[in-house]
């Protein structure tokens, strides 16, 4: 497909730019084109590649059933390296290739940069992992949806848990200086301060990839924090927690969806025991989720990576909406997304007017015996 593009460009360049000018309305092509965009190379590839795999599996399943309304689903996979400037190119490329809906992007920053382009072209976008609240709450992007909770909702869950369940009085809020982690940490800080029941004793960022986190861990200890809320992803979380264990600290460690990932338990091993993390409600009894994970194991002989279930859900939701709407027209798809419930690995969901998923339950988990167990 990609190499064919070049030929097509040279032969029918003008025609193509005309086709561009007309919004990708209705049923123009003979396939339904599902774009997948996110980091597929570079240091953040591990967050983007599971999404590609999820999309591949969902599409294979749909096509095996004969496609949607008689049409096969085709994947257009594009890498944005999680960089905003690359994301605009990626988005333009997808739009030029006549994409109907997009699963992506992975990082909030890249998503923000790409969304205006999709909006202009009337393409619905659903991210499995972009959690920046502004994406839905600003109302700027009517074509944006996501299958993951936004930062503020997650931060609220974490803070409520830390204060009301754990009973923490002094909380250290640590983040990884990243888009996701820092955003979340800031919400956590605000919620803690608002609650009046606990104080933030430390609010700092660690440098991802640094060789050693001893100093920050010592600092947490010195500040006498009884709980740590960490905003960020599992590599940093596991480094911090193992460093804390090495220093014989027993401070409660609470983190987010970026840590509620089996990889965290694998990497942190024994040190992961007792760590709390927020995440979508337990799906281990959800047959769709079980099937999705089994499909991954079968196809790739490995466990799925980060945001796999969210991505799987998003792909299902998007294709389902197209099927129900009977068209890839933006208004119809949006309407279908909002009204038609769909069974996905993260629950039986539809979407609210802003684009956040309804029905994605949120819960706190604790690592017990090498597994995340929901805290009731």
């Amino acid at each position, binding site marked *: 497909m990609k190499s064919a593009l070049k030929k097509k460009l040279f032969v029918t360049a003008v025609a193509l730019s005309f086709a561009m000018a007309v919004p990708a309305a209705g049923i123009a092509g003979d396939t339904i084109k599902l774009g997948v965009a996110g980091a597929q190379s570079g240091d953040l590839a591990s967050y983007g590649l599971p999404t590609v795999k999820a999309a591949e599996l969902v599409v294979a399943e749909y096509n095996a059933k004969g496609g949607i309304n008689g049409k096969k689903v085709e994947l257009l996979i594009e890498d944005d390296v999680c960089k905003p400037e690359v994301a605009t190119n990626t988005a333009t490329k997808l739009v030029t290739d006549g994409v109907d809906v997009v699963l992506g992007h992975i990082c909030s920053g890249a998503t923000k940069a790409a969304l205006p382009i999709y909006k202009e072209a009337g393409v619905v976008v659903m991210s499995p992992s972009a959690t920046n609240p502004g994406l839905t709450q600003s109302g700027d992007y009517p074509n944006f949806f996501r299958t993951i909770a936004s930062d503020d909702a997650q931060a609220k869950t974490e803070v409520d848990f830390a204060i009301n369940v754990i009973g923490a009085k002094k909380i250290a809020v640590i983040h990884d200086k990243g888009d996701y982690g820092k955003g979340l940490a800031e919400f956590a800080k605000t919620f803690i301060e608002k609650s009046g029941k606990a104080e933030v004793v430390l609010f*700092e960022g660690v440098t991802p990839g*640094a060789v050693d986190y001893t*100093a920050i861990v010592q*600092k947490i200890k010195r500040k006498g924090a009884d709980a740590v809320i960490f905003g960020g992803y599992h590599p940093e979380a596991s480094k911090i927690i*193992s460093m804390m264990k090495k220093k014989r600290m027993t401070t409660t460690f609470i983190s987010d969806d970026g840590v509620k990932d089996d990889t965290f338990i694998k990497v942190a091993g024994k040190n992961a025991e007792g760590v709390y993390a927020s995440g979508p409600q337990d799906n281990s009894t959800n047959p769709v989720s079980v099937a999705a994970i089994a499909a991954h194991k079968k196809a790739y002989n490995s466990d799925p990576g980060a945001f796999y279930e969210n991505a799987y859900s998003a792909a299902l939701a998007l294709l389902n909406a197209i099927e129900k709407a009977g068209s890839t027209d933006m208004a119809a798809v949006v309407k279908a997304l909002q009204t038609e419930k769909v069974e996905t690995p993260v629950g039986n969901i539809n979407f609210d007017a802003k684009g956040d998923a309804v029905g994605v339950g949120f819960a706190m988990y604790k690592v017990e015996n090498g597994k995340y167990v929901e805290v009731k």
Partner: protein
Amino acid sequence: MDYFIELFFGGLTRGSIYALIALGYTMVYGIIGLINFAHGEIYMIGAFTAFIVATVLSIYGFPALAIIIIAGLAAAVWSSSYGYTVEKVAYRPLRKAPRLAPLISAIGMSIFLQNYVLLAQTSDFLPFPALIPEFAFMEPVAHIVGSSDLVILVTTAVVMIGLTFLIKFTKIGKAMRATAQDKTMAVLVGINVDRVISATFIIGSALAAIGGLLIASHIGQINFYIGFIAGIKAFTAAVLGGIGSIPGAVLGSLVLGLTESFATGYVSSDYEDVFAFSLLVLILIFKPSGLLGKAETKKV
């Protein structure tokens, strides 16, 4: 005071880690005047090799001590081989090229090796087996200095002494010093400069591999990207100490490690790297060739 000591030891560990990588930078720079950007990747490959070998051995049920020794050796052997090959493929043909050409080649090599490991292995973080055991005698002070910190400190000290000995007294060390000072003269007195340069890469890479093994074991995880940040920091440390100088690399690394540790401890870790780089700028302004670098005498 306890807090100060904790930070001090934390900084020392961090500095020692930098030192093991920085030594490779400084040796290569001293001899061919090249910033070997791929050195961080050599370190990463060392860590990966150790990871692979150690995991395989533990699956086949080898005893812990054997695992450490074999994994360490394997890491050193393969890192050295990579270092040697990288020099031969990417730098040697460029020995007479304009000054920046090898630098770009090095950047290219760094990107290549990163993606090579990414594709051949995985983009995920992997749990690195705890090769360094928790010593019982360290338990009373474990909240200040852990066992792995101790091992890292001791290893760095031993390596440092060994390296100084090697450079000062052995034949290859003397050849290295001669080559570093004047390549043409070294050739004239019968030194095989190519071989000396290869030896430098091999030794530097082996040190990086030891560093990779220790750090990975200390923090318990690796992925293909760990070489990049560690590499830049180690390079900063080498320059800070005076690039080309071996004691300088160690001193620079320790200063950098301590600065970062104290900056985090007493100010904020938000600006930890800002402190590190500002320190570098400040020191270079007042001492343009680094802490222990020889002031360049202009020969006119």
